[in-house]
């Protein structure tokens, strides 16, 4: 990997003017003896394949509308055909960009052929998966229409072409590694990091950020709306290859530099995109999923503060969500509430957060004197104690506070200033249903948690937390009262979870002890929260949000494989830890921790500071 160092300073343009001697791709075509001919031939094949696959989506793929998404119409791509269409267009765009076509070069500031190869793989994956799904669901390949065959052939041709293209990085010195096909493929997937970009006018950069947020919103909305089963799996397959492809092309890095330069604008654009989401939805079922995703993501972000910043491994975090939810249920006028109180919502939120804070202090005080594995076990224990206590406070084995296993049902809908959250409201011609209302309410809480996370991260307290995570002894020797600060992080995390719990109680109508287990097949539970943090990326804001969205959507959309769900998550997590231990969204620190690239961490842009780290002294106004 030492070769990467030399690419740091070269801009994308310079890299193309200084080509290494072209070598054969991982699977060279038999005809191309001359490297340049091979390259031209490879590009030609890839392009032809992409066009062919595109043409395929314009024809019917099967004869019956029985298969989810109507794939029977000519000139009207739908469902999974749209995914192949998108992949084909992206393949063509990346191909033109890698060939150096003016106006498209910005698409591939980093890797060129590696991105193209991954994109053809994405296209092949989604198309061939669709063919497989049709064959299985309808019984045999006899159900294919010509369009399907064209798509299959096109994606295959594109992949063969892309495999023949030379790798982005010059070959490693002879004798370093065996020259096997697997090694050649891995080498072909390596990409140089993008060089420094020419600065754009400020408004253009902000516009780009907005466009990225809009794209993110569209992808998320598409994922939520995708029908259960094959369409959603196809979406996952495409996403699993297309995002790494764009990553190889260097677009996310470029974007993160922009986001670091315009932090406030980025947050604002993301918030607006999230705000607009309910307007894109007409189906209550999908907004229901969205509000659950949002609650889950918010709680995961709260846990990220405890785990990602202060380094406290908390395996019982969901208990604090439960404390908040139960407190809100008890004081919000449910008929079965043992208290019989009905306080306004703002008071319920404050009471819920305060009770969670007290629980956090009570649990944290004894357990935070422990370290590492012992602490994890103790928090796991307290999490289960909460659930079992709630289950037993039913009047038989203890005072009746929580109604035991029955929980507290029929929590009335919120009504704030005459606005009833349970009813539909028309807004600018859009119908906002019950879950859309709660979604917008929850978004406010998410914004609060994001703000708390960001502001505490980049401050004296946040630095002390990170110092404790890095080396507790050294932090104490620097005057950091480690126990007090860890207790503060623990209690703050508990408070935020309790706050989210008060909304959860209203959204779900009822609270039952079974929702707050350590591990369960559906989120939220402590294990899933932790997985969301690790999967998304510890210590980042967007990581847990994305991780939580994936972790919630996948079980919700793939009901049919519920029995194997935990097994599949286990496998996915092992693979992730092997290939991307820093999580989907990499904290700059973590990325350097896990990947010894040999290059010094020289900030790319002195004005922006180290990407991913807050520029000190230039805190947002």
């Amino acid at each position, binding site marked *: 990997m030492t070769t990467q160092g030399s690419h740091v300073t070269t801009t994308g343009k310079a890299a193309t003017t200084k080509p290494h001697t072209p070598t054969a791709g991982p699977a060279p075509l038999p005809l191309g003896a001359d490297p340049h001919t091979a390259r031209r031939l490879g590009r030609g094949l890839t392009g032809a394949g992409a066009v062919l696959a595109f043409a395929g989506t314009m024809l019917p793929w099967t004869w019956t509308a029985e298969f989810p998404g109507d794939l029977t119409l000519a000139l009207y791509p739908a469902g999974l055909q749209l995914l192949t269409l998108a992949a084909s267009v992206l393949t063509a765009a990346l191909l033109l960009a890698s060939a150096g076509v003016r106006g498209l070069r910005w698409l591939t500031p980093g890797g060129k052929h590696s991105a193209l190869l991954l994109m053809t793989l994405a296209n092949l994956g989604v198309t061939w998966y669709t063919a497989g799904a049709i064959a299985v669901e309808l019984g045999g390949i006899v159900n294919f229409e010509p369009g399907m065959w064209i798509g299959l052939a096109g994606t295959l041709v594109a992949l063969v072409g892309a495999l023949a293209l030379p790798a982005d990085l010059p070959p490693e010195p002879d004798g370093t590694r065996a020259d096997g096909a697997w090694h050649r493929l891995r080498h072909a997937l390596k990409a140089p990091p993008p060089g420094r970009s020419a600065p754009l006018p400020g408004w253009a950069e902000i516009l780009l950020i907005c466009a990225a947020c809009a794209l993110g919103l569209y992808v998320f909305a598409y994922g939520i709306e995708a029908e259960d089963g094959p369409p959603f799996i196809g979406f996952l397959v495409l996403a699993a290859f297309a995002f790494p492809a764009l990553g190889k092309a260097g677009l996310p890095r470029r974007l993160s530099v922009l986001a670091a330069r315009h932090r406030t604008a980025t947050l604002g654009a993301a918030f607006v995109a999230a705000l607009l989401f309910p307007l894109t939805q007409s189906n209550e079922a999908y907004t229901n999923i969205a509000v659950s995703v949002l609650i889950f993501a918010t709680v995961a972000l709260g846990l990220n503060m405890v785990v990602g910043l202060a380094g406290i491994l908390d395996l019982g975090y969901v208990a604090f969500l439960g404390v908040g939810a139960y407190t809100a249920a008890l004081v919000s006028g449910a008929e079965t509430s043992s208290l019989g109180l009905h306080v306004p919502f703002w008071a319920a939120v404050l009471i819920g957060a305060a009770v969670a804070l007290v629980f956090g202090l009570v649990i944290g005080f004894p357990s935070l004197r422990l370290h590492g594995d012992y602490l994890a076990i103790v928090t796991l224990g307290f999490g289960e104690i909460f659930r079992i206590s709630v289950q037993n406070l039913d009047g038989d084995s203890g005072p009746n506070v929580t109604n035991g296993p029955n929980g507290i049902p029929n929590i009335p809908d919120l009504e704030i200033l005459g606005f009833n959250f349970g009813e539909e409201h028309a807004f600018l011609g859009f119908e906002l249903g019950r879950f859309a209302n709660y979604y917008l309410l929850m978004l406010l809480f998410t914004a609060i948690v994001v703000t708390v996370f960001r502001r*505490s991260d980049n401050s004296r307290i946040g630095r002390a937390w*990170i110092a404790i995570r890095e080396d507790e002894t050294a*932090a104490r*020797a*620097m*005057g950091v009262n480690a126990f007090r600060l860890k207790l503060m992080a623990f209690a*703050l995390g508990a408070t935020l979870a309790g706050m989210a719990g008060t909304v959860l109680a209203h959204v779900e109508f009822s609270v039952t002890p079974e929702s707050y287990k350590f591990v369960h097949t559906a989120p939220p539970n402590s294990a899933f929260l932790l997985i969301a943090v690790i999967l998304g990326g510890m210590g980042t804001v967007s990581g847990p949000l994305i991780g939580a969205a994936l972790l919630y959507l996948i079980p919700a959309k793939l009901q049919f494989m519920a029995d194997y769900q935990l097994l599949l998550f286990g496998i996915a997590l092992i693979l992730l830890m092997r290939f991307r231990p820093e999580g989907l969204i990499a904290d700059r620190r973590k990325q*350097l*921790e896990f990947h010894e690239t040999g290059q010094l961490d020289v900030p790319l842009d002195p004005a922006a500071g180290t990407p991913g780290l807050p520029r000190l002294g230039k805190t947002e106004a």
Partner: protein
Amino acid sequence: MTTTTTTGRAPAPRDTGGAVLEASGVTMRFGGLTAVRDVDLTVRAGEIVGLIGPNGAGKTTFFNCLTGLYIPTEGTVRYRGTVLPHRSHLVTQAGIARTFQNIRLFANMTVLENVLVGRHTRTSEGLFSALLRGPRFRKAERDSEDRAMELLDFTGLTDKRDHLARNLPYGEQRKLEIARALASEPGLLLLDEPTAGMTAVETTATRELVLAIREQGTAVLVIEHDMRFIFNLCDRVAVLVQGQKLIEGSPETVQMDDRVIAAYLGTPFEGEPGEAEAAEVRAAEAHSTGTDADQPEEGN
């Protein structure tokens, strides 16, 4: 200012005005093992005191007793007349900062952030002011950063401010650790082998740095194995052998002391080759090398 006291018996001078650190009768036992036995040590304002001794003599254990990482079994440690609590963050708060023998930086924080963590005890912005980001918070952050940048300037790390600490070369990591310790504005700085693994040039630079720190009014207590470094730098040197203080005094006194040499090189055993035998060996060598015998080497 130099006093020569020998093991244990002499009472610590209680009345000296400028005493920054007074350790009296510090004993540290781990089960049956006594790592440090009844050690007294005084550091006065503006002094650089060296602590030397063979490996395993208990120097670092003694340091840990001073800084609250260990609770000494017996004895007290006073800083400017008040007894220090046995909590390391409170010791730092009181005004004693330290570095570690094996560098313990916050590896995944930037250079500047490392120094800012050192400012922790000298700033007081809590969680709420961080969340509200009022003008006071911003001013405090700015002041902290200015002070940290001064320290980076002082140690010559200004242009590395945004690098991760783990990516610094070894010598600069040592410097950063000192800068981080200085950020807590200590009255006494404890350095645990600051030149271990350094080249001669880096060692000289470290010596200059320690002298500059003294110029700024901070007393320094330094553990080191590099004798030349210690004897060139320190006003006073204490020797710790097997957990006990063997001797304390000016570099010259310590350098000449037979017991110190014995502790480092071992004592002559019975039947050791005497001067006569040594002369015999020398003559035999001179004879065997033949032509070279005309230029006998000196001082070997």
